[in-house]
């Protein structure tokens, strides 16, 4: 997973923008000791944020493979996850059980909504990305109403005064906050204490093993799927739909499957995000994750119609690296917090670059 590749051909393959971003991150890393920022804390942050976001980024892969483009309709998938999470709490589950139930409840929603979404995308081949964007918005704004109108009653979630309508931010303490992250967590401070030795700055590193294993499992399943008969068909559909059709593949059904997979992974992704972050965010929040997620997989080396698991991993690390490092390092260095602006320019610039690349324009 090393991004510091020395070979010139490899550099060329990485592409110009990726090079700049990696270089930028590298500079940030080098700067850390000089501006008095604690490197181990930063690394812990990056690992943590990686564990929150990686599954969401992974959710981009099936749709890209099947030629449905970048999934700007991610809010739809997130809504499925939100339904799973909120219903699990509403039904009274607590602790790790609430996470299991959230996964179980989110799944049928993902299959049904994803199926409908797939049906729609099959009717508008060629215009997927723009329509996905607005399907995401529409569904999200529809659910803004639903969060107010659905008969939720769990006192941890609804507005305290009126007693109905979900709050915009719901704390997951007592539910599935850190459920996976705490599983087999490696905390160097505790190890040091147990062994009665000092590990120095290493003691500030914590690794959320459970979350990483969960991601690794899903990524492995994705990788394995792409090596099966159906997975091969999906890649072929994305590579050349006419070829696949002539080879007897049901293109529409394959695309539909990819959309359902993407939606389900997106739902899992937001649950992973919530268990790491510790809060459920409703209303317009789902939209905030779309662009960073799309940008992450592109930064990782994916294009509009090709993506792989390494793209997901590299992209998430690079993007989250920039998100975590820029505010602290730049703030300490020049006392100006430009991180938000840099994040916008980097992520949108990356998407723009992918959209305007010539080789991908002709379809």
């Amino acid at each position, binding site marked *: 997973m090393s991004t510091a590749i020395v070979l010139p051909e490899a550099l060329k393959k990485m592409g110009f923008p990726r090079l700049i971003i990696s270089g930028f991150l590298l500079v940030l890393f080098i700067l850390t000791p000089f501006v008095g920022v604690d490197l181990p804390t930063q690394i812990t942050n990056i690992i943590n944020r990686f564990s929150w976001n990686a599954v969401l980024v992974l959710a981009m892969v099936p749709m890209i493979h099947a030629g449905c483009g970048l999934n700007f309709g991610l809010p739809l998938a997130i809504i499925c996850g939100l339904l799973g999470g909120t219903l699990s709490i509403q039904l009274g589950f607590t602790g790790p059980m609430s996470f299991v139930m959230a996964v179980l409840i989110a799944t049928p929603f993902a299959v049904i909504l994803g199926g409908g979404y797939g049906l729609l995308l099959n009717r508008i081949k060629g215009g997927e990305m723009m329509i996905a964007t607005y399907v995401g918005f529409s569904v999200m704004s529809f659910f803004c109403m639903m969060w107010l109108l659905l008969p939720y009653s769990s006192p941890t979630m609804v507005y305290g005064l009126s007693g109905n309508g979900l709050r915009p931010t719901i704390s997951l303490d007592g539910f599935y906050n850190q459920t996976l992250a705490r599983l087999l967590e490696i905390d160097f401070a505790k190890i040091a204490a147990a062994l009665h030795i000092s590990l120095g700055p290493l003691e500030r590193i914590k690794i959320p093993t459970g979350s990483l294993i969960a991601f690794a499992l899903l990524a492995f399943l994705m990788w*394995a799927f792409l*090596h*099966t*008969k*159906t997975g*091969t*068909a999906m*890649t*072929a559909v994305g*590579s*050349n739909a*006419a*070829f696949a*059709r*002539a*080879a*007897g*593949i*049901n293109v529409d059904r394959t695309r539909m499957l990819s959309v359902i997979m993407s939606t389900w992974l997106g739902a899992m992704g937001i649950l992973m995000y919530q268990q790491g972050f510790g809060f459920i965010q409703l209303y317009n929040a789902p939209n905030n994750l779309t662009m960073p997620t799309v940008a992450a997989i592109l930064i990782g080396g994916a294009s509009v119609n*090709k993506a792989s698991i390494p793209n997901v991993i590299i992209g998430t690390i690079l993007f989250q690296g920039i998100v975590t490092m820029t505010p602290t390092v730049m703030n300490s260095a020049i006392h100006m917090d430009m991180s938000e602006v840099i994040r916008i320019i980097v992520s949108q610039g990356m998407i723009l670059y992918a959209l305007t690349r010539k080789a991908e324009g002709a379809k």
Partner: protein
Amino acid sequence: MTNNVNPLLQMQNIKKDFFGNQVLTDINFTLGEGEVLGLCGENGAGKSTLMKILFGMDVIRETGGYSGDILIDGKKVEFNTPFDALEAGIGMVHQEFSLVPGFTATENILLNREPCKKNIVSEVFGDRLNTLDYKEMDRRSAAAIEKMGVAIDAKMVISDMPVGHKQFTEIARELSKDQLKLLILDEPTAVLTEKEAEALLESIRGMAARGISVIFITHRLHEILAVCDKVVVMRDGYVVRDVPTRETSVEDITKWMVGRDVQSAAVGEARTNDGGRTILSIKNLWVDMPGETVRDVSLDIREGEILGIGGLAGQGKLGIPNGVMGLYEAGGKVEFNGQEIPLNNPRKCLDSSLAFVSEDRREVGLLLDESLEWNVAFPAMQIQEKFLKKLLGGFIKWRDEKGIHQVTQKYIDELQIKCTSSKQKAKELSGGNQQKVCLAKAFALEPKFLFVSEPTRGIDVGAKALVLEALKQFNRESGVTVVMISSELEELRQTCDRIAIISGGRVAGILPAAASSEEFGLLMVSQVV
């Protein structure tokens, strides 16, 4: 025509090759002012390439230009773009319409040449803000339509027009150009009704009378006889005849078009198989394939034979395999081994052991961005579950990379596919090698029946021979029935046992491969639409 004046157009020793593939050799002819020249020849004879050279199309320059001279009014010219040709007074009506659908006939006739009036804004911001002079536009388009001599509604929007009127709008557009001296019409009557075609011929005569020269390309030979002053017949990149029309006939022209001497034509070892069992029976097939419409085709194919399907471009020969294999919308009845195969469902055809090598290599035939291994093994994997390892009792079907590699390597060796390795991407191969990959893909399916569409289109001579030989071998050794569709009659005669000629979307006739070229030629033009 007086002799002391230079003729309008002289073509002298025009030569053109596409990457070593000679397509035009020593083309010479002249065309006088007000003369109508009929240009005919089979597809691939070089007519379109010649016209592209004359019209300065980009593709000529991009593929290395041409040699020889074009003289207009005795002066040597060199057109780098179609706009240069337009400037010099050459107009061309292409087979594909080049009209803006939402504009009226007038707006299309004067597209980008609209008469304008100056105004205050345009004085400051430049000529593009001149206002259109609608009155003058109407006048000019009316004049052009008048010149053409066929009445069309100048105010009608193109998308509402019948197809013939679109064609006339294009012609009127060329006529509205004042400098027009020479008009090239590329199969203009193909989309016209009989009456409209009649009117067009009349209009051509009118143009000639006004001193405009016309090059008229058509497969309808009687039209040439009706309107042209002279006929130029091309074959295999040569001009084989250049004669005054009154000295010739449809039979003569047909013979020149297709006829190499019958003795010299290397007819392959064609077999007669009259008693053979019918393996595939096509009844009343129609196919909606744009540009290759099939109407009511019935055809029986015998087990073990190689049947050729020939015909001129656009007559529907390509529609047959594409329709049967479910790639374009089709209707009718297709029976394979006595069992009906549902149409519009590629999967069902493949399941019945039919295979298809598409004429469209890049769009349909290949996964350009994937490895050769994927290209060769993919259909066999998906249809017949070959190259898969079953895990967990068949629940998981895992790709067998080793098996895929082996089969690809086998075909790379057998078909002599030139590549760096079986992992190379298909898009990096040359046309001939790509075609071999397409064949390998079909062979890997081990079909009982194979459709091969234009197997030699756009590939060099060496690869051509190899591809045809591979097909023959596949037929002889594996007993596979092959239907080969090709525009090149000679190639069909070398390879096939029987040849069906499609004309006007229908079967014009079926002849043994040994039949004479004239017979084939007459069938080809018999029902041309």
